[in-house]
């Protein structure tokens, strides 16, 4: 088991640490309805100058119309008619803000009854998760559930935002009690980095700026943390994975204006992990054939090396049969070529799982038919207990499953590679996305 590691109350925030080499951080916010999530997001946007004057005027007017004494920041984020009518948040929304150091994409997942699937959806692309706790209530079932889901989706950077500290008179003992309870819980899950921050979203204390008036807290404000936390870039050091999206063939005069070659064959795709250099020997899966990299391009631009997340065109030195859905790896660290999968899965659909039905699995750029061979157990996200051999799965269930595949997939474990370790399940009748899976 991996040892837990987290920053303790006493530790200083190291301002000399440069922000990670990424101008973009994706994070999610999670918390239950009254924990002040919308207020926190509103505050972050407002204090960083990312609320436009017309937006502010609109929510001020609406707040006043409703007889509120202060601005209701949820009006900034809850945009849909039904949300306003019912005062609830329906679905994940994406918000954007920027400071001089970084750009941020917030996956704003609602804390309501559909929590599990929405949280899983938002968390799938996040580098970091802010878990909001009401200082008066402490760590609740909801907090543990959100921490577990963040863990399941591979988020290692967690912020425990202890909100409404003003309502408990900024008592360090209250804060420390919550931090201890939370750390005890997440250390049982595995390896994480937890940054706890006492704050007041309503007053903006420790949100964008640090509160000097709280002598016992020496850590960062929430914004300082978000500007400095490393974005997920561990994929750069992982073995090369390049799922082929499309074969590109220049022939019969279909060359783009400005393209040099009258004839060309190459492979388009985004590097899921690792790096690719000119001259590298690669292997193509599932066949395992080898070739060397002859060219790397992004449109007219030729590269000597392509890094993770770049969308490139690869030319090889030998003619081998490669199609969409195949995967390039480095020659010595191949993906697993499998026809059965063991995975943890979140069922997202209102239609329950049907065990005798054939579903489609979309994994990287390959889609295959699959059966559920076994539903091993269901995880109770409140207690983390395992309930053995469920008959079916219903919306928001988290299950351990075994799948039998009609064609092989080229996979890694999710803990090693978020892209080659994840898949979605598509119902071939409704064509809906009905489940999300992480490969064990």
């Amino acid at each position, binding site marked *: 088991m991996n040892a837990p590691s987290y920053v303790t109350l006493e530790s200083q925030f190291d301002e000399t640490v440069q922000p990670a080499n*990424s101008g973009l951080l994706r994070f999610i916010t999670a918390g239950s309805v009254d924990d002040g999530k919308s207020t926190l997001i509103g505050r972050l946007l407002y204090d960083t*100058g990312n609320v436009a004057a017309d937006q502010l005027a609109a929510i001020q007017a609406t707040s006043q119309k409703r007889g509120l004494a202060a601005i209701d920041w949820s009006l900034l984020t809850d*945009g849909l008619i039904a949300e306003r009518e019912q005062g609830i948040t329906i679905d994940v929304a994406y918000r954007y803000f920027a400071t001089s150091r970084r750009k941020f994409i917030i996956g704003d997942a609602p804390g309501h009854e559909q929590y599990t699937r929405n949280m899983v959806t938002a968390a799938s692309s996040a580098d970091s998760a802010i878990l909001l706790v009401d200082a008066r209530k402490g760590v609740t079932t909801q907090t543990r559930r959100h921490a577990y889901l963040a863990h399941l989706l591979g988020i290692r950077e967690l912020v425990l935002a202890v909100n409404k500290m003003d309502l408990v008179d900024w008592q360090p003992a209250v804060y420390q009690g919550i931090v201890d309870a939370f750390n005890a819980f997440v250390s049982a899950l595995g390896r994480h980095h937890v940054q706890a921050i006492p704050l007041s979203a309503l007053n903006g204390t420790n949100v964008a700026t640090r509160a000097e008036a709280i002598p016992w807290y020496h850590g960062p404000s929430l914004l300082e943390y978000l500007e400095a936390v490393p974005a997920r870039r561990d994929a750069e050091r992982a073995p090369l994975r390049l799922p082929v999206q499309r074969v590109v063939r220049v022939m019969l005069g279909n060359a783009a204006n400005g393209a040099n070659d009258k004839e*060309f064959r190459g492979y388009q795709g985004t590097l899921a992990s690792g790096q690719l250099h000119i001259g590298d020997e690669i292997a193509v899966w599932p066949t395992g054939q080898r070739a060397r990299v002859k060219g790397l391009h992004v449109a007219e631009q030729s590269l000597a090396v392509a890094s993770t997340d*770049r969308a490139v065109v690869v030319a090889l030195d030998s003619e081998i049969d490669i199609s969409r859905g195949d995967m390039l790896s480095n020659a010595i660290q191949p993906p697993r070529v499998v026809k059965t999968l063991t995975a943890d899965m979140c069922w997202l659909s209102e239609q329950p799982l049907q065990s005798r039905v054939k579903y489609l699995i979309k994994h990287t750029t390959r889609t295959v038919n699959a059966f559920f061979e076994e539903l091993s157990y269901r995880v109770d996200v409140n207690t983390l207990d395992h309930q053995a051999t469920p008959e079916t799965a219903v919306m928001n269930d988290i299950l351990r499953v075994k799948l039998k595949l009609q064609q092989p997939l080229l996979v890694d474990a999710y803990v090693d590679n978020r892209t080659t370790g994840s898949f979605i399940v598509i119902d071939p009748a409704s064509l809906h996305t009905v489940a999300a899976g992480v490969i064990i």
Partner: protein
Amino acid sequence: MNERVNTPFNQTHAAADHLDLLEAEALFILREVIAECRHPVLLFSGGKDSAVLLHLAYKAFHPERIGCALLHIDTGHNYDEVIAYRDRMAERYACQLHVRSVEDSIRKGSVRLRHALESRNAYQSVTLMEAIAEFGFDACLGGARRDEEKARAKERIVSVRDEFGQWEPKNQRPELWSLYNTRVALGDHLRVFPISNWTELDVWQYIQREDIELPALYFAHPREVVRRGDILVPVTHLTPAQAGDTVETISCRFRTVGDISCTAPVASSAGNVADIIAETAQCLLTERGATRLDDRASDAAMEQRKKEGYF
């Protein structure tokens, strides 16, 4: 109030990195749609977002030429230079250009105007749906961004529309990792927004970096306008000055270029992309708040129109 506590996010290494990431994400989405859909089309209006999208499509296909056609829904109320730009771009990228006009829908009777000078912007949905049915498109690639409007912030990158073009906010497919589900039943189609995660500032920074040509309307120029509240209404044949109006000639530019009858310019002296980036970074009004005459009708005007098939 609402002063920025931070300097604008630009001109740094980090900024270059974030544009690379946004570009790579868009290329990936474009390639997924190109690979998986039967008959995709790229909606091209000649505006800055669709100019960026067209450039991204060029990069996604390269070294092949762009393998899908362009579709423009012409309200008949466009600025001449935008139409000329549209035609020039289609030629430059050797793309087939389909133009379908609201005028034809009016003639057929599927669009009925309340009065001759009514804004035709909302009626584009009808003509768009007619074009989708006519050509059998199963995916429409568009340059919409989530930062434009609150209802857009909730829309998926790959969004399913039924034969009425309706968007159902309560029944969207969950979208996880970069695994886009592009499957649609016959008669349904996808609206795909590869630049969902871009902001207005990202778009301008990318235009600068990639040296993307735009219609001259985007840059400061002298123009006759009438002030109506805080909005500058351009004096045109469709929006003539009324009795008692004071017509002024000011230096202005368009932040968004759409239908003449519903887009307003902003006072500006920004004559090049660098100036516009500086101005955008400091601006305290949203793109739509500053310039649109049609989203102000209600808090949910955009959502309502999207439910009716609006792009």
